[in-house]
């Protein structure tokens, strides 16, 4: 799975809804404003990203905006991966 697919899948598997079709979200929708995720999800997502992609997300990257949409999350991961490969 691509990074994009992994992130979408992880979000979809954590939606607090009885039917995923009830909670459609685009890659640019703010997933927290949709109301389908519980309050612990931001932290879980952070753990997932760090573990799955073997990254460390610094405090400077911890703006909720970085985690608010699929595209922003993918962008953050790719930025961290570029930083790692150029280090």
């Amino acid at each position, binding site marked *: 799975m691509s990074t994009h697919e992994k992130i979408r899948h*992880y979000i979809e*598997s*954590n*939606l*607090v809804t*009885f039917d995923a079709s009830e909670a459609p979200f685009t890659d640019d929708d703010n997933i927290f404003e949709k109301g389908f995720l*519980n*309050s*612990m999800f*931001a*932290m*879980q997502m*952070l*753990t*997932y990203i*760090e*573990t799955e992609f073997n990254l460390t997300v610094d*405090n*400077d990257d*911890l*703006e*909720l905006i970085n985690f608010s949409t699929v595209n922003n999350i993918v962008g953050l991961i790719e930025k961290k991966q570029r930083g790692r490969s150029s280090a």
Partner: protein
Amino acid sequence: MKTLTDVLSQVEQYAAAELRPRAGRFEAQEAIPREVLQGLAKHGIFGATLPTIYGGLALDPIQYGQLTEMVGKACNSVRELLTVHVSLVGESILRWGTGEQKQYWLPKMATGEVLAAFALTEPEVGSDANGIDSSYRQEGDHFILNGRKKWISFGDLADLYLVLASRGDEMTAFLVDSTMTGVSTTKMSNLLASNASHLAEIHFQDVEVPLGNVLGRVGGGFAYVVNSALDHGRYSIAWAGVAIAQEALDGMVTYGRTRRQGGRVIGAYAEVQQMIAEASVNIHASRALCIAAGQKRRDKHPDAVIETTMAKYFTSKMAMKVATDAVQVFGGNGFSREYPVERLFREAKALEIIEGTSQVLQPVIAQHALRTCYQQGWWRA
């Protein structure tokens, strides 16, 4: 050089000799004596999970759980200090602190020179942590903090507070030195339990907090600092439930083998054995849940949060049940402060309330099951 096994063995001996026999007195005196805290510090437990570079013991989650059980079995209030100092504040600084904050606070916390408390709850805000009233505003190179916190374990004793405050919709975490001008405390007394845990109200009156004392990002207080701190807290409470239940089982077995009624020790009666059997099985199940959560935490598995939540939910309810049965086995003596079971009974109740009440955790657990256990067409398979 001492091995980790040596350290844990020494803590166990210290707990058996200095904590367990005195836990009831601590509760009656509403304080843990300073020399006891110094004794604990000598064994390094205030830096239990902190890396060795900060002077910590670097225990992994399972080892820390075992330490928590060991200490909590002897004295719930000392265990409570571990929960707030190590799990809630130490882990938060380790995770979210700047290099400077870690270098400054963690070595002092590891030695016990600085004791820390977690200041989230307020008179009007318990489970709805997102709705706190304590506020901050920025003025030049510092923030001005105002508000009132309540039910803060070791708030009366701590040198450092991790304080959560809000500005409009955002919440931020601050590291506040208890000696800062405008900080004052009022000790809370006559509580159902945890009287030795130095619970206090903390008042913040125009406290000037330097910008460098923000933990994590401005606005990142709830999503990250609070949620991860409470996750660590719940893991600690899960083991605390095992500790109280095991102590209660030890009590009911010992009493059951010595107390005679109708010509037999009461442990020979099927009705008592039924309670002992239930307790034994439930304690084993609880410990297994805690270890499973600990393994996930050690491996940084995304399910660590939900497994920790389930462990806390189960063990806190289980501890209440086992402690209730222990009082039942002790009969009239279970009502007496001459026997520790009444204290265990009171202490167990607190576990169902702190770090997320059972009722707050239930929907989280249910939602997880509703997501993960759904099998379309299951009945047709």
